[in-house]
């Protein structure tokens, strides 16, 4: 159906913009490759976990930095380490870079620097979250639409893979069809 093609185009534009802006990197692409019939919601699950984690860590760090008595840089360090690990696992490049920057300040026990970095980190995190959530919304919406179509209607122009993998495997399809996915490194 045509709207699928439009959706496909929309997705590609969007995801290439994500790459272009450096919000996500190659690891994200790798994660997307892991999506298949067995684990169709993989990226979404990982992303949700990451968001939870990230929020918790940022909160902790914020609280830690608020401490009047004395900032527990060790704890902050641990948080940062975790966050760095998580963000690199998920391929959130800017977040990871922010973490690295934060690290250096926390290593130097520079509270202002840390605060600034925390703010930067928050900002990057929100940006990432927004972008990823939009992407997921597109996928969920198309999936629901497709499911509705299939359950209550009959879509007999198939050949398109099913929506759970639709959005995230569109790339696979394009490649298989001999096309190329724009990558931003």
């Amino acid at each position, binding site marked *: *159906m*045509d*709207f699928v093609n*439009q*959706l496909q185009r929309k997705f590609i534009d969007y995801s290439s913009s994500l790459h272009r802006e450096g919000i996500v990197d*190659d*690891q994200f692409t*790798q*994660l997307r*490759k*892991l999506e*298949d*019939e*067995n*684990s*169709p919601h*993989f990226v979404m*699950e*990982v992303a949700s*976990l*990451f968001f939870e*984690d990230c929020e918790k860590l940022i909160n902790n760090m914020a609280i830690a930095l608020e401490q009047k008595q004395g900032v527990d840089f060790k704890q902050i360090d*641990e948080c940062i*380490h*975790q966050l*760095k*690990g*998580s963000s*690199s*696992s*998920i*391929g959130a490049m800017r977040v990871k870079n922010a973490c690295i920057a934060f690290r250096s300040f926390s290593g130097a026990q520079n509270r202002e620097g840390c605060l600034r970095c925390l703010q930067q980190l928050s900002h990057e995190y929100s940006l990432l979250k927004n972008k990823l959530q939009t992407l997921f919304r*597109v996928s969920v*919406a198309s*999936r*629901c*639409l*497709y*499911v*509705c*179509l*299939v*359950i*209550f*209607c*009959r*879509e*007999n*122009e*198939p*050949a398109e893979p*099913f*929506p*759970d993998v639709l959005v995230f495997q569109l790339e696979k399809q394009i490649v*298989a069809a001999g096309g190329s996915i724009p990558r931003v490194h």
Partner: protein
Amino acid sequence: MDSCNCIEPQWPPDDLLMKYQYISDFFIALAYFSIPLELIYFVKKSAVFPYRWVLVQFGAFIVLCGATHLINLWTFTMHTRTVAMVMTTAKVFTAVVSCATALMLVHIIPDLLSVKTRELFLKNKAAELDREMGLIRTQEETGRHVRMLTHEIRSTLDRHTILKTTLVELGRTLALEECALWMPTRTGLELQLSYTLRQQNPVGYTVPIHLPVINQVFSSSHAVKISPKCPVARIRPAGKYMPGEVVAVRVPLLHLSNFQINDWPELSTKRYALMVLMLPSDSARQWHVHELELVEVVADQVAVALSHAAILEESMRARDLLMEQNVALDLARREAETAIRARNDFLAVMNHEMRTPMHAIIALSSLLQETELTPEQRLMVETILKSSNLLSTLINDVLDLSRLEDGSLQLDLGTFNLFAVFREVLNLIKPIASVKKLHVSLNLAPDLPEYAIGDEKRLMQTILNVVGNAVKFSKEGSISITAFVAKSELLRDSRTPEFFPVPSDNHFYLRVQVKDSGVGISPQDIPKLFTKFAQTQSTATRNSGGSGLGLAICKRFVNLMEGHIWIESEGLGKGCTAIFMVKLGIPERLNEPKLPFMPKVPTNHGPTAFPGLKVLVMDENGVSRMVTKGLLVHLGCDVTMVSSSEECLRVVSHEHKVVFMDVCVPGMDGYEVAIRINEKFTKRHERPIIVALTGNTDKVTKENCMRVGMDGIILKPVSLDKMRSVLSDLLEHRVLFEAI
């Protein structure tokens, strides 16, 4: 006197008497001389005269008598002794001959008389022969008449002509006064006067058929003389003194059914017509035998001719009927062809023309949904979308079904992943099911082959339809989907007696059962389920919409796949189970695995590179743990996750072939774990391969890893290909020391 020796006559010659005597003697002599002359003359004339001797004798006798009388003439006057001597001699001779003749005549005369008798006899005989010949000539003429009559009758196939000709010819041949034909009426109870010779208009006079005289005629195959007073003979005007003799004969009316092939016509038929023939009155003529025979023969010929005419009529009628039917059939065929062409054209147009706008509506509505809308607007757009989707489905269904029914639909066979199909269906259904709070479970039998040959798209459509129906019609409860390979004892299901699947080496029968706990279906509705456009009447289902074509399409797909589909339900409110079996092919195995966990060549479709490889992942960071797990699961491994070293040591066993541990978290003693694992598994082959995942691969880390006996080290983040190659290397060589 003198002695002149003369003899004096006694009487004086001049006497008158003497004169008369003289004349008479003269004539007598004359006559006597002429008689033999005549005799000789006529005898000579006739060819045959057996008695010549008698003639000679008689001639001599007559001549001598004549001579005597002649000589007597001289004795009337004075005559000499010589004359007297001659006279005497003549007389003596005459006497002798006459006596001889007299004696002879005694013999001859009876003979002559008997000739006469014979002649009379022959004459009588000749007269008799003449009479007989006359008779024979009559008979022969009669025969000729019969032949001619038959020819006349048989030369036409028209019933009326036949009968009319018969009567006319018979009348002529036999010189009849009247000839009539009585035919049985339709009811068979009366005889109706149908044809007469003289009376031009038969009145339609009827006579009951069961009169004794008629029965008598009908029971005999010969012509029967009947009384002129009986009703059938009383048709001519009265007023004659003496009615002529009447004869009646039966004419069998044969039907087509009487003529069997190679069979003589059955004369058990009871239908006869009656032919009545009347001789002219006052003629004192009688019916002769030959005439009766003629009549019988004619009656038979008429019967045959009539039945020929009837047969011909029948066959002409049948032929006309056939021609009419042919014309009608031709017309019907042309109409049907026109209808089919019209339908195909209509479908072709509908296909394109209707789908295009539908797509536009659906696509644009869905894009509209993505934009900023007020709640009211969103509701409106959703309704538009839903309605247009329904319509699109309806169109597709109808077109699909007509293509299916056409027989023009063919399966797209290909090798596909059967498990994947089921998982897709499950994933599609789960959101909806969870909205409705229905629990969906999928059970795939262990012996179900993973790959099969069939039409993936349509199989998916079928399963989705069936499962979708289960979801649609269940308000609560659970839905269970079971799939297994149908064994031969299960194949012969008593509920589907007409389905005889035969499994073979290249094919297997997939049996899928979808059980739901929904509203159920009453038993009388079950047969209607698969019919087009039929929906159950229960109000609960009214709201669900749908065109009623889904199951019909499924059934056709299943039939195309040489299978069978049916639904069982115990009744309303008791849920129902939909079961179908389809025939799928078994793909040939391309790579026979020689060793377990031999990694296959990484291809685009073969993510299960390490099927079932048991792996332990230890990572404190939830996200990266999940990512690693995702990677490994994608490669087909069976992953156990632990988040602490204690848990790791507790869980690790000889079943785990590889242990991935994150060693870059400060404070976590991954190295300690590695040492402990090495201690736990003393035998080398039981020990799992230990791989470190780390964020940095500086020298220190590497040395530490080597020191504790780890088999490998991988730099995070790990890409899929990297993980795959690492695992394959590890499993092959059992050692890898670094993978960047």
